[in-house]
Structures are given as C-alpha cells and as structure tokens.
C-alpha cells in the first residue's frame, strides 16, 4: 500500500519552497520530512516494520500491546477533554491529537529516575509518568495551576510561557552533573528531557538552553515536537532549515525522527538519554509530526490551513500503523483491541464523572503558597476578604466547613450557597450583592 504524499502540494504552492531541494521522502511522509537517510523510521504508516542501522529495537508483542494501549488511552483522554470543554466543564484544552506517538514513544523511553520538563500539551508524557489525568483537567478547568508533585512523578509542572522550561531542564541537568548522578548510561543514572515545539525554537530561552547544555555538556535531551504549526504560523515562519539541524551550530547532534512512529520515537529517545547519562551531553530530537487538531479549543485552524493537509496526515496516523502491525504480525487479536476499546470507554466515563464532580477551590486557598511562610500583606488581605465575605447575609454560618475563609487550611470551606450556584471562589461577591 502506498500513500499519496501530494496532500501537501497545495500548501507548497502558497509557501516558500524549502531552501534545499527535498530528496525523495521517507515512506509515507511529505517531501519536507526529508530523505529516508535523514528521517528515522521503524514503523511505516502502513504498519510495516523497517530496520534502521543505528536504532535497532527489539520489542516484544507484549510491549507493543502496551504502547498501543497507551496511544489509544491518551487519545481517548484527549477526546474526552475536548468534549468536556465544549460542555463548559473545562475553560480550555490543548489537544495532543496526532502527537500521541511522539509523546508515548519518548515518555516510555524515560528511565524511572529521568526528569521530564513538559509544555502544556504533554498529556501523553504525563500519562507515562503516572500523573493522574484528572490533575491535567484541574489545570484546564481552572481549579489549579497544576496539582501534581513534580518530584513524585519526575514530571515537572506544565509551563505555559513558550520555551521557558528548556532552561529549567538544563539547570536541572547541571544539578545532576554536580550530584554525580548520571551513572554509567543505564537506567540507574539520571538524565533530563525537555519538551517544546517548533514555535519555541524561535524563543531566546530555547537557544540559550542549547548554549548552556552544550558548553556545560549537560545530560539533557531536547525533544522538539515539530507539529508544523505554532497556532496559525507555519514552520516556514520559524526556520529556513530543518529544525534538527539547528543543534549543529550549538555543537551537539540533532536527529529527525518520524514523530508519528512510536517505535522510532522510543528507540531514538532511549539512545539519546543513554548518551546523556554516559556523559556525551545533549541531543536535539526533532519529532516530525502534525497537530491534527486545533492549537487549543479556542482556535479555528480552518482560517489558516488547508483541509487537504489534515487528510494527508490522517493517513500517517500514529495509532493506526501500530494496530496494523499488531494485526499483521499476529501480536494481537480482536479480543485485545476490544478490551483496549472498552478500557478507553471506562477511562472516558471516569474522566467525565471526576471532572464534573470536581469542587471549586475555597476562596482562602487563593492566598496560600505564595511564600514559604506568613506574609504581612497577603495575610492581611486574606483576613480582610474573609471578613468581607462573612459580612453578607447569606454568609454560610452553620454550613459544613464553617466560614468561607475562616477555617483552617485544607478543610473544605466553600459556602454551600455558592457551591449550589456552581460559583464560589472569587466570583461570588458580586453575585451576592
């Protein structure tokens, strides 16, 4: 089976041609993905296993099944979250649709002690690091800014300002060096992975992190998901050369991997992390993929890109090719796929229920954790606001949890009235008047 790559030809007409003449494309990918020797691929869009001399991957049927399950479940999480946003349960959602393989492949390459620094779209990596998906929904519902403990999961909080986290990742890697904790390359050692996108490569912070990682030989892997779009701006607005080539100017290797190929992402990330732990310094991995959905739920991609592109990329779907390979190789049968589908259904139902029943935070909680200890201004403002809330006639005396701000930290203290209205928090006062 061959896949037409002409789907992007319409886009080519309106965009500047790549500087270098593009050689014949790797299997199933558009010409700009580069030649086969340029793009690392272990599983074609048709589900054919191919070998790469530098990235041998010995993977069992069971491991393949696990990867497939991961891919399906994170896509279901994503689908569910978009629906919850449409129903008004989330304020926003940044979809990972199309990037599942890049995230699961790289996420499953991480050793237990490796540290990941995500953007706000790394739901699949969060999944691999054992972060409760409901914590991700909390953030997009507006209940928290990120409720998980980074140290517990070795998965840092989402960073929303583009590219900032790459410096944190590099600094963390410098700490690993100082701790002598890189080990000998195996998974007892530690390395760092920094996630970012094609748009972020224009940020100063990303370029500074490349400088730092290079000159200090820091054990960090820069994992760039090139999903072709920074909201409405195409890659051509960020770079005139393939992104993976950027690293050369900074003095460390760069690789381009088929970002919709979970096996290639796994193998390449594993090798880069190992090199980092062995003291070989940073690697830039460009996972060549496509943002199949909108930038976020507020975005409308029909205003700036062609439907044909999406159709072409659907033929390179990161999940379908794994399914095809599982079927073709006899590694899974119908009952396996049925069970994964059923599990996805259960996950969706659970997410819906957990999201809808999530309580709003107490007004008091908005004043907590600004500083390590008491703070005269914040404490005074908190107390004054508590007194203000208590001054209303419907102040919830006698309701469970006590006054809205008066209770000890951690106790449920949302006014019952406000909770019944589905408001509470800082929006309540105007309504109560």
């Amino acid at each position: 089976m061959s896949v037409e790559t002409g789907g992007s030809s319409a886009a080519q007409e309106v965009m500047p041609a790549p500087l270098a003449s593009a050689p014949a494309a790797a299997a199933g990918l558009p010409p700009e993905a580069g030649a086969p020797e340029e793009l690392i691929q272990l599983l074609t869009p048709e589900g054919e296993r191919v070998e790469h001399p530098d990235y041998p991957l010995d993977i069992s049927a069971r491991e393949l099944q696990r990867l497939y399950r991961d891919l399906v479940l994170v896509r279901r999480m994503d689908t569910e979250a978009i629906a919850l946003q449409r129903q008004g349960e989330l304020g926003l959602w940044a979809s990972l649709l199309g990037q599942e393989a890049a995230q699961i492949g790289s996420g499953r390459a991480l050793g237990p002690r490796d540290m990941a620094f995500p953007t706000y779209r790394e739901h699949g990596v969060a999944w691999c690091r054992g972060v409760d998906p409901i914590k991700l929904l909390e953030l997009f519902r507006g209940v928290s800014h990120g409720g998980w403990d980074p140290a517990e999961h070795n998965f840092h909080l989402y960073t929303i300002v583009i590219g900032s986290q790459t410096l944190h990742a590099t600094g963390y890697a410098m700490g690993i060096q100082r701790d002598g904790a890189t080990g000998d390359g195996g998974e007892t050692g530690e390395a760092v992975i920094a996630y970012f996108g094609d748009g972020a490569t224009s940020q100063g912070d990303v370029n500074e992190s490349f400088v730092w990682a290079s000159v200090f030989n820091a054990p960090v892997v820069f994992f760039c998901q090139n999903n072709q779009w920074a909201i409405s701006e195409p890659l051509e607005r960020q770079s005139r050369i393939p992104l993976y080539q950027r690293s050369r100017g900074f003095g460390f290797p760069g690789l381009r991997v088929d970002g919709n190929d979970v096996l290639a992402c796994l193998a390449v990330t594993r090798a880069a992390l190992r090199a980092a732990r062995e003291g070989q310094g940073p690697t830039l991995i460009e996972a060549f993929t496509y943002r199949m959905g909108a930038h976020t739920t507020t975005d409308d991609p029909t205003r700036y890109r062609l439907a044909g592109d999406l159709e072409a990329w659907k033929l390179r779907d990161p999940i379908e090719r794994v399914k095809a390979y599982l079927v073709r190789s006899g590694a899974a049968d119908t009952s396996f796929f049925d069970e994964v589908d059923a599990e996805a259904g259960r996950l969706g139902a659970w997410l819906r229920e957990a999201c809808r029943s999530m309580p709003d935070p107490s007004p008091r909680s908005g004043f907590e954790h600004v500083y390590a200890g008491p703070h005269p201004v914040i404490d005074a403002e908190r107390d004054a606001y508590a007194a203000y809330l208590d001054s209303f006639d419907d102040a919830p005396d006698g309701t469970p949890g006590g006054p809205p701000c008066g209770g000890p930290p951690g106790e449920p203290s949302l006014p019952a009235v406000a909770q019944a209205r589905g408001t509470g928090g800082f929006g309540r006062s105007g309504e109560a008047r």
Partner: protein
Amino acid sequence: MTTLTLARALNEGLRRALEDDPKVLIMGEDVGKLGGVFRITDRLQKDFGENRVVDTPLAESGIVGTAIGLALRGYRPVCEIQFDGFVYPAFNQIVSQLAKMRYRSRGQVALPVVIRIPFGGGIGAVEHHSESPEAHFAHTAGLRVVACSAAPDAFMMIQQAIRSDDPVIFFEPKRRYWDKADVDIAASAADALPLEAARTVAEGTDLTLLAYGPMVKVAMGAAAAAREDGRSIEVIDLRSLSPLDMTTVTASVRRTGRCVVTHEAPVFGGLGAEIAARVTEECFYSLESPVLRAGGFSTPYPPSRLEEHYLPDLDRVLDAVDRAFGY
C-alpha cells in the same frame, strides 16, 4: 570587628554561605576568574571551584532559568546580574517562573534562588548602568525584595537571603560598594535582625524619613543637617522592600506625624507611592502633613552629566522635609 567595604562585606558573606552549605552556588557573568566586575565574588572560584562558582554564558535569562532548574534539583543558586539595566532579559524567568512556581505547585516546589543586582546611579556610568528597577519586583507576588545600605547589613543580609526558602531579589547600592564600616564577621546570621525587618538608624521626634539602599546615607546627612535647624528627624532604613515592614514605619509616623520617602527610582508608581498610601490609610489621624516623596524624575535615567540633577540629593530631601513642615 573588621573594617570592610560594602563590596568586601558581601564577598565575606558569600564566602560564609558557600562554606556553610555545599548546595550554595554562585553563577553569573565574569564571577569566576575575574571575581565580578565589582569584585564581589573575588577569589571565590579559586577557593570553591568551577562547579560552585560558575562563569556562565552571557545571557541573563539563561542565568536565571538554569538557576531555577538547579534549585529544583536542591541547589541554592546565587545569580549575579552584572548591572541593573541588564536584568530585563531575565524578567520573564524572574516574574513568570521564579516568582510563581511555589504558588503554581501549591507549595510543593520551593525555589531558594537569590538574584543579586547592583543598582542605582551616581557613578558616572553609561546608559543601563544606573537604574533602580526595584518596583517591578516588589510588584510581583512571590518574590522577596531587599536592599542593603551598608557593610554590616550587607554581610548578614546576603547570608539571610541565601537561607530564605523564597526567591530573593537582592539590590546592592553600587555607589556605596567602596564605603567602609566595621563588620563583625564572627557573628551568626541567625542572630541578626530578620531580613524582612526595617531598621531605625537615627531616632527623632518630628518627622520620619524613609530610605533604602544608596539613599540611606543621603537621608542620614539630611537628618544631621535638619538637626542644625532644630528639627528632629527619625531615619528608617527599610531594608526589605517586599514585604515592607509597615509595623516599624507606622509606629514611627504615629509618633512624628510626618513622613517623607526617598528613593532614586522615579516616584511615579515607585515604592514611595505604596508607602504613602499605606501610611495615609494606617496613620491618618496622626498625620500633620501628607506623605511626601523625594525621588528620581519620571524620565529614563539621564546621561551621567545630568545625574546630579536626577538623583535626589541632600538638598532635595531637605526640600521635601521643609514642605512637610509647611502644612
């Protein structure tokens, strides 16, 4: 007691911090072999090694951003920003990351990072080397902002800032770097005045004059001059700009009934504005006159041949004092 310049007192304080805690790191441009352009980190790399006193690439956002990463790993980085006007490339990392990560993580992440910034004018420097950007940081929740004014405090405050579990923006009055004073370098920072406390440096009964950093010396001069006119002025070195020690300030103003705030930074939207609002609110019935401000003009910092006009000097502070007595 040892007589030290303010610069040397900071150096001794940093040395002490490096000795006390192996997690303390110093990072910045030229802080290693050179010892910093003001020599604040002189000889520290030689004694503590390149892993702990790090000459960084020349990018301020990178300095602060990687310091955040090191802090996440358990280190206590002390970043040097070479001059006040060079901090802005790091502004995003300071304001959006360093200040907010504890809150973002609901208290699960601490970032004990100190950012040292030589600030203020009066040294005849070129543009971007004489600014007072403290209000930007005092306006940002999650940061502690302090300014030392003399060698003894500098020695203690830098150690206290490094021990703080909150990020601290540490302003150093560059035109006072060479001022000498007696410092007890055997004393423990644990016994020193808390970092967030103001210090009454001259007692008085008729007016409270508030200053910090380089202006404390000017304020002391103004108080001495006013004494000759029979006016008793209380001078308070604020030391901490966020949080402000309003307890000390309001207790003084309630006694004196008058208050003047002075700083080099432009008065519009400056620390003096916040202090004036709070003093008015908390001491309204004790005030004999409005709270007045003597500060820099609301212009960019001028070429250095004009800075004597821009910087509030003893006469301009006294002018504000006179006006306060005119009500």
